[in-house]
C-alpha cells in the first residue's frame, strides 16, 4: 500500500509541471499586452517600459518561463497588481471559504445522489425511478446562476427564511478561528455557550450548497443508478441471495460497495470542479472564496493574480484526484494488489 502511494505521489510531479507550464503559457500567450491593459490607453512608452521590466515582460518568453517556474517551486506566486498583497496569502484566506462550500455541496450531492440512485435502481421502472431520473435530467440541465437566483428569490426575498449572501451575519462581530465557519461556530458555541454563530454560518451555507450541489447530485444519482443496475445483475449478488442473506444487506453491503467504484471517481471529479467552478455561485451569493476572487481579478486585469488562482485550483484538483485514487484502492482490492 505504501509503495502504491509513493508511486502515485511520484506521478504527481510531471502532472503538476504540466499544469504550471500550461497555466503560464495560457496567460503569456493570451492576446493583449498586460502592461498596456493595466496602465490604460493614455500611458506613454516610458511608463509601459517601466512596468514591463517590473513584471519581467521584457525578457524572452523562455526566460520568463524559467523564472516563473523557479518562483512557483519556491511557493512564490508573485504579488497582486491591484492590492500589492502576496497572492499566496490572498488565496489561502479565500481558499477555506471555497473548500467549506465545496465540502458541504459534495456531501449534500453524494448522500442524496447515492440514496436516490440506489432507490431508483431497486425500484426500476417504477414512479420512484421515473421521478428521480426526470429530476436528475432537469438538475443537470439547469444553469447554476439561474438556480441560484431562483433560490434567492424564493427563500430569501419571498419567504425571508435564509440570507441572500455572505458567510455570517455581520452583526455577530465574528473573528474567524479556523476559517471554516461551521467549525468556528461550534467552537464559539462551546466558548460562549450560544449557538448563534453556528446557526448563522449554517443558514448562510444552505442556499449556495443547494445551488452548487444540484448538478453533481444529478450526475451522482444517475451514475449510482446505472452502476447499481449493472451490479445487481452480477452472479455474486445471486450467490448472496442464494446464501439467504437478507435483501437489504445484499443491496447495501454486497452490491453497493461494488456499485460505488465508478461513483467515487465521479464524486472526486465533481469535488474538483466545485473548487474551481464555483465562480458564478460565489459571485451571486457574495461568498468570499477563490471563485469570486478570480472573477474580480479578471475584471481588474490582474494577470499574476489570475495566473496564481488558476494554478492554485489546478493544484488542488490534482491532489483531489490523487486522494480519490487512493480511496478507490481501499475499496477495490484488485487495484491495490496489482
Amino acid at each position, binding site marked *: 500500500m505504501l509503495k502504491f502511494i509513493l508511486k502515485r505521489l511520484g506521478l504527481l510531479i510531471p502532472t503538476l509541471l504540466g499544469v504550471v507550464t500550461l497555466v503560464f503559457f495560457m496567460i503569456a500567450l493570451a492576446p493583449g499586452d498586460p502592461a498596456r491593459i493595466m496602465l490604460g490607453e493614455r500611458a506613454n512608452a516610458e511608463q509601459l517600459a517601466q512596468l514591463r521590466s517590473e513584471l519581467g515582460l521584457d525578457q524572452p518568453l523562455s526566460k520568463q518561463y524559467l523564472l516563473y517556474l523557479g518562483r512557483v517551486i519556491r511557493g512564490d506566486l508573485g504579488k497582486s497588481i491591484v492590492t500589492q498583497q502576496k497572492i499566496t496569502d490572498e488565496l489561502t484566506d479565500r481558499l477555506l471559504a471555497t473548500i467549506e462550500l465545496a465540502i458541504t455541496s459534495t456531501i449534500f450531492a453524494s448522500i442524496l445522489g447515492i440514496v436516490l440512485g440506489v432507490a431508483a435502481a431497486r425500484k426500476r421502472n417504477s414512479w420512484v425511478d421515473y421521478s428521480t431520473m426526470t429530476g436528475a435530467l432537469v438538475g443537470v440541465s439547469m444553469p447554476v446562476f439561474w438556480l441560484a437566483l431562483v433560490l434567492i428569490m424564493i427563500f430569501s426575498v419571498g419567504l425571508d427564511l435564509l440570507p441572500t449572501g455572505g458567510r455570517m451575519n455581520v452583526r455577530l462581530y465574528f473573528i474567524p478561528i479556523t476559517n471554516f465557519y461551521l467549525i468556528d461556530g461550534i467552537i464559539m458555541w462551546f466558548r460562549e455557550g450560544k449557538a448563534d454563530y453556528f446557526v448563522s454560518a449554517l443558514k448562510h451555507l444552505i442556499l449556495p450548497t443547494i445551488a452548487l450541489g444540484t448538478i453533481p447530485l444529478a450526475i451522482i444519482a444517475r451514475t449510482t443508478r446505472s452502476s447499481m443496475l449493472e451490479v445487481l445483475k452480477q*452472479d455474486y449478488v445471486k450467490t448472496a441471495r442464494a446464501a*439467504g*442473506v437478507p435483501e437489504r444487506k445484499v443491496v447495501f453491503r454486497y452490491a453497493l*460497495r461494488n456499485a460505488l467504484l465508478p461513483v467515487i471517481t465521479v464524486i472526486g471529479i465533481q469535488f474538483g470542479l466545485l473548487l474551481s467552478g464555483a465562480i458564478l455561485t460565489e459571485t451571486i451569493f457574495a461568498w468570499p472564496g477563490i471563485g469570486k476572487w478570480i472573477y474580480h481579478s479578471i475584471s481588474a486585469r490582474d494577470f499574476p493574480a489570475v495566473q496564481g488562482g488558476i494554478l492554485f485550483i489546478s493544484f488542488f484538483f490534482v491532489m483531489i484526484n490523487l486522494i480519490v485514487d487512493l480511496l478507490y484502492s481501499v475499496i477495490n482490492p*484488485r487495484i491495490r494488489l496489482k
Partner: protein
Amino acid sequence: MTDTATIETSATGTGELLGIDNLSVSFHTRRGVVKAVRNLNLKIREGETLALVGESGCGKSVTAHAITRLVPMPPGVIESGIIRFRGTNLLSLPEKEMRSLRGSKISMIFQEPMTSLNPVFTVGTQIAEVFVTHEKLGRKEAFARAVELLDLVKIPDPAKRAKSYPHQLSGGMRQRVMIAMALASPEPGLMIADEPTTALDVTIQAQILQLLNELKKGVGMALLLITHDMGVVAETADRVAVMYAGRKVEDAPVEELFANPRHPYTVGLLGCQCSAPSNRNAVRLTSISGSVPDLLTLGDGCPFANRCGNVKNECMESFPDVSTAGEDHEFRCHNPITESGASS
C-alpha cells in the same frame, strides 16, 4: 412453518427430501411468453444425488432457481405446481421463512466460479456471512468457522487463503470456496449444483466432482446436480432426470438409464459422448441433428418430434403420458426405443 404450507402426502413417508409436482414456469418477454418449464415432476430422496440433464435452455437452471425461489419475477412467473421440501410447500412460504432456508437447508453453487464471488470481499468474509446470517455468530467466530470449511474443501493453508480476494484464486479454488459456502449450513439438506464443473479444466473437474462426492457422503446431504455432461452423470449421480425444452422426458436410476434408455432423446445424448460405442475410432462425433425448438412457439406435441428418428404422427399432436419401464423408470414417448435398442 405455517400450517397452510404443510402438505400431507404419502410421499413424505418414503424418505422424500424434495418433491416437485406439476411445476410450470414462464417468462413474459417482449416477444411473448416463454414456457421454460412445463408440468415438471421430480423427486429427490434424502442423501441422494439426482442429475438433471439436458441441453442449454431446456429449463434445468430455471427449475433450480424455482426451488430456491430465485427466479427473477418479473419477468418470471411460476404458473402452477408445488415444490415440497420435507413436506413444506416452498412456493407458499412467506419470503422471510424462505430466506432462512436458503443457504441453510437449501444451498446452491453456480456454474461460473469466476463471477460468483464478490470481488471486493475476502473469501473468508463471504463464507462467514452464511454463519452470521443463519447462526447469528459474531464476525470473528464466523470467520474461524469459514477457515475450518476451507480446510474441509481441501484448500491448502486455509487460514491464509481465507484472507484472499477471489481474483487471487484459481478457478478450481474459487469453486471450492463456493462449495465451502454451500456447506456452511447448520443442517445440510439439499445442495443444488448448477453446472459446477462446466467452466473448469478437465483435471480440476474431476477433483471437484470427487470432492462433492466425498462431502455428500460425509455430511449426508442430497445433491441436485445440473449438467449436460453424461460423463459427470455417470460418475456422480444415483438417479437421472432428462429434460428437453422444458419437459421431463425420462427419469431413471443411473445404471438403468445408461443400460436401458427408452426415450430417443436420451439415446441421442448418450450417443454424443466421446466414450459412446458409436464414437470409438470415429472421425466425427455423433450429434443430434437439428436444434432445440423455440420455446415461444412450442405447440402441444412432443417438443423433440422435429429432431426425432422415431417420430410418428401422434408425436406432433400430443405430448405423451408417463410410461413406466420397470421399477422407478419413467419416460414420456409415443414410440420409445425398446430394450434391445431398436425402435418398435
